[in-house]
């Protein structure tokens, strides 16, 4: 086995092995558990850095293992995979740090971190999947490993949310499976390839291919929270904040969005998908989701629920970018995969901080929070402005490219959707900022756990991760043209995967 | 109609009666007896059909001997279980399905 085959496996192992050991650790081995978590996270960063350097230089990293005759488990670290992997790896580190602070003294931490690591492993598998079979294996693994996290608190409410989550994701997974097997029985394999594999069947099978596309998109659309398959996401809010961060920014919804990218570009091929007339319905669905999510967010008083509906809306930017037929839209969608992750994780970290420090769960309780917790609120503000697409933030970059993509594709209406969404974003985020910064301090906080001590507004481990991700939000916005930025990488992907096929 | 066929038809009839008994009777003792009738029916078919050209075929005889041993063992087990069941619960038929 060569080094190029081993590296993708090592990326998986760097979270799988610590996770398995953590399961076996007794609850009170805090130091060892923390060390394992961080060792895994840093090892993964190192491995991913190696991969990034290699892929930029044109190396191939493929590992193949036959499971059944004609069906292989394939891991392939290509440029698109690495976009997702790098995002997940970096955010995993921050989320781990945050979770260590957040769960201090809470019960069942070994179980929590064990499943946490499994969840990241599944995400890595999804990112590196080289065919739909492998994608499905890890897609379901992700469902299974997130369920214990969603129900972690063990309350009836958490159980209800967990049940709803499972109902949606397992049914979605089933649709995905049928689509994959059907495709497999027609094409004979399900490899991801530049330009797609479905076009080999030609227009003669257009009916079947359309049905398969519907099944596949329905399957991944559940995790990507496309309307009307989004119902689980706001319910899953009962989970602890690090889990919400993971669901919304790193793993679950991203897995769905990433699946849409893979299916559209590397199973159907964007041109073939266009010629089958599949892209316009997808774009309309994404647009509806964007607007519906934003509208629903307006009316949520629960802070995390408002953020959840915001996720519903924002993740569909990625789907919209895919569906805009043209490289500019692709770049916009891909870069938003990273940008949305960084911004949304900041928002959830901050929401967790408000809840843990002051017991704030509702928007109406946010009055004066900025004075009590200036750093957290500053991070929150940066991310919220980013979501609106304010200049200098990562969000502005995404929206600019998506807008250009819409124009280039001749889909002017999509531009209106983006504008309307920005306005709605402002309408549900600005009141929060106004309350936090401009309203006076209340007489008492709902439930203050962590008293302020000097300049330290809350525990360090809770404060540093949102500050770091907020800084990334600004960095990705300001230095968008740098050669290490997500934008540059998205351009590289578009060049390699899209233009190669287009021209 | 050859004598073999008569045996075989009688065997099938016995089997059917026995099987109906195993299925439909309530009392354990009667069900055990019905099982034995059912088994005898099968043995009769086996021996009866094998009598071709009036040359005795040793193979079905061996089979029936084996089958009788099995049937005796099964009957013994059924009787032992039924007795114990009666001793524990004072009933000679099985409680209704759940």
């Amino acid at each position: 086995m060569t080094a190029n085959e081993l590296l993708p496996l090592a990326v998986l192992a760097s979270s799988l092995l610590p996770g398995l050991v953590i399961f076996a650790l007794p609850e009170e081995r805090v130091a060892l558990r923390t060390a394992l978590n961080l060792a895994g996270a840093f090892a993964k960063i190192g491995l991913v850095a190696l991969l990034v350097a290699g892929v930029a230089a044109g190396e191939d990293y493929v590992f193949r293992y036959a499971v059944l005759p004609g069906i292989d488990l394939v891991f392939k670290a290509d440029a698109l995979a690495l976009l997702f992997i790098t995002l997940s790896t970096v955010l995993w580190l921050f989320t781990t740090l945050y979770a260590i602070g957040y769960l201090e003294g809470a019960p069942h931490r070994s179980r929590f971190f064990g499943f946490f690591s499994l969840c990241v492993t599944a995400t890595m598998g999804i990112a590196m999947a080289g065919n739909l079979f492998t994608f499905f294996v890890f897609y379901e693994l992700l469902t299974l490993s997130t369920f214990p996290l969603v129900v972690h608190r063990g309350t009836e409410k958490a159980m209800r949310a967990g049940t709803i989550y499972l109902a949606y994701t397992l049914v979605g997974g089933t649709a995905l499976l049928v689509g994959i097997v059907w495709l497999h029985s027609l094409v004979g394999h399900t490899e991801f390839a530049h330009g797609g594999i479905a076009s080999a069947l030609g227009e003669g099978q257009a009916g079947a291919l359309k049905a398969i596309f519907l099944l596949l998109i329905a399957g991944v659309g559940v995790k990507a929270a496309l309307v009307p398959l989004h119902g689980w996401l706001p319910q899953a809010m009962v989970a602890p904040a690090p889990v919400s961060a993971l669901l919304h920014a790193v793993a679950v919804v991203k897995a769905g969005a990433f699946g849409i990218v893979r299916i559209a570009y590397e199973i159907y091929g964007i041109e073939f998908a266009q010629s089958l007339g599949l892209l316009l319905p997808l774009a309309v669905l994404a647009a509806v989701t964007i607007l519906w999510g934003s509208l629903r967010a307006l009316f949520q008083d629960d802070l995390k629920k408002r953020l959840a509906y915001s996720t519903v809306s924002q993740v569909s930017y990625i789907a919209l970018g895919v569906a805009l037929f043209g490289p500019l839209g692709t770049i916009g969608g891909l870069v938003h995969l990273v940008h949305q992750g960084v911004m949304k994780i900041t928002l959830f970290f901050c929401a967790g901080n408000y809840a843990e420090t002051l017991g704030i769960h509702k928007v109406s309780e946010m009055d004066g929070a900025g004075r009590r917790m200036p750093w957290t609120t500053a991070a929150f503000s940066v991310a919220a402005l980013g979501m609106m697409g304010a200049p200098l933030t990562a969000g502005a970059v995404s929206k600019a490219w998506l807008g250009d993509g819409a124009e280039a594709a001749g889909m002017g209406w999509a531009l209106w959707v983006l504008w309307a969404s920005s306005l709605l974003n402002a309408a549900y985020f600005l009141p929060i900022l106004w309350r936090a910064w401009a309203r006076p301090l209340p007489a008492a906080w709902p439930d203050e756990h962590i008293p302020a001590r000097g300049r330290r507004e809350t525990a360090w481990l809770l404060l540093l991760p949102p500050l770091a991700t907020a800084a990334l939000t600004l960095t990705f916005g300001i230095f968008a043209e740098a050669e290490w930025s997500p934008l540059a990488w998205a351009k590289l992907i578009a060049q390699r995967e899209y233009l190669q096929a287009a021209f | 109609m050859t004598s073999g066929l008569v045996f075989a038809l009688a065997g099938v009839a016995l089997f059917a009666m026995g099987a109906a008994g195993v299925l439909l009777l309530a009392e354990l003792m009667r069900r055990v007896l019905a099982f034995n009738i059912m088994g005898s029916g099968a043995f009769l078919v086996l021996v009866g059909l094998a009598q071709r050209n009036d040359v005795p075929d040793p193979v079905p005889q061996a089979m029936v001997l084996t089958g009788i041993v099995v049937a005796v063992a099964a009957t013994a087990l059924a009787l032992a279980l039924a007795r114990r069941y009666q001793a524990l619960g004072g009933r000679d038929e099985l409680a209704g399905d759940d």
Partner: protein
Amino acid sequence: MTEPLPWLILLPLAWATATFLLGPGRGAWLAIAGIAVQCGLTFALAGQLLAEGPQPHAAGGWAPPLGIALAADGLAAVMLLLTQGVALLLALYARGYFAPGDQAARHFWPLAGFLLAGMNALFLAADLFNLYVTLELVGLAAVGLVASGGGAAQLGAALRYLFATLLGSGAYLLGVALVYGAYGTVSIELLLPLVDADVPRAVWFAAALMLAGLMLKTALFPFHFWLPPAHGGAPAPVSALLSALVVKASFYLILRLWLGPFAPLAAAIAWLPALLGSAAILWGSWRAIRAERLKLLVAWSTVAQLGYLFLIFPLIAAPGPALAAGVMQAVSHGLAKAAMFAAAGVVIHVTGRDTVAGVAGVAGRLPLTLFAFALAGVTLMGLPPSGGFLAKWLLIDAALAQGAWALAAVVIAGGLLAAVYVFRVLRQAFLDAPAVEAAHPAPPLLEWTAFALAAASVLLGLRGMELLRLLSVGSAG
């Protein structure tokens, strides 16, 4: 022991007798050692098959028809491997499960030995009559095991099971008699060229009787009535043995007949087992979803999972992965169901309650057992990367390739229904609940064997190639 076939039957007979004399203490270790040797023999047999192809064997040098012929092909080897592997882990489990002086243990070991001897003989027998004898041996030993708990409910379940199994094998025997009457032989090999599509009516009748009898013994809907009380009421190691292995034995026989002598007749009625199998999946899952008792839930799940095995029959005539799907399902369900009963046994042992509600809070106290239950559940739901997933994939693949959309829909629905009953338990386990006062400690041996079985059922999903390669040796289908 250059020839493993007869030893696979003689060895369990020998240790079964010896454990009866030695008693459960030392006898248990003897049994475990015996099964370990059987495992080695089966691996040797599998290696031999892969290298040299199928080998016939005449026991004691006596030629058929009066002698007993044995034969092993890939299908038999897969079933033998499953049986010895599951039996070894369950024997270890049983060693920890039965308290010293437990009356049930006195009966468990000898009966388990006779059961294994019967099963191994069944997989290897090459003629229809010897198959009848092995069927009875398996059935009687299994009934004894069900009764070994000793309670009135268990004896009732055992009697119900006994009458069902006797009726099933009686029907089979009558079928054998009719076949002998028609052809003058019961050797599977000799029958193969004799049976064609326009056979006398008696042979049709014989085939119907034999298959119906075997379906009764496999607890295919609507013949499943005896299974839930028998499997749900027995001591945990017994439930595991019965649900994982014994019902597979009669399924194996159906498969043998279907692919072998009765293949020319089978095409006409192929939809019937699939229809019954579909009904079994839906009804069994529904009852599992409604079950109040934990072990009864697992037992009803067996009724449902057995249904999948029968979905393959309409697909099996055409080339394709249908047979592989069925065998994969049999093997992965065997491992998973053994794991699930073993895990349920640990939960019941610790909490003292056999109810689904009693599982509350188990996640905190028995994480390993719960993990075993969950992994087994993953296999039953057919989620990746388990063996159950491969089975489901192959089955849907075969169904879609032949345009059998209804079958694919049943498989899909069955997977979702399985998710409902599996997560009914898991959800309960994650609830925060106060510790039960009467809690017993969980013996690690029990927890780890349950886990090993469950892990095997999942890891099978990564070793599908080996299994299918072995299966294809001398394959009739």
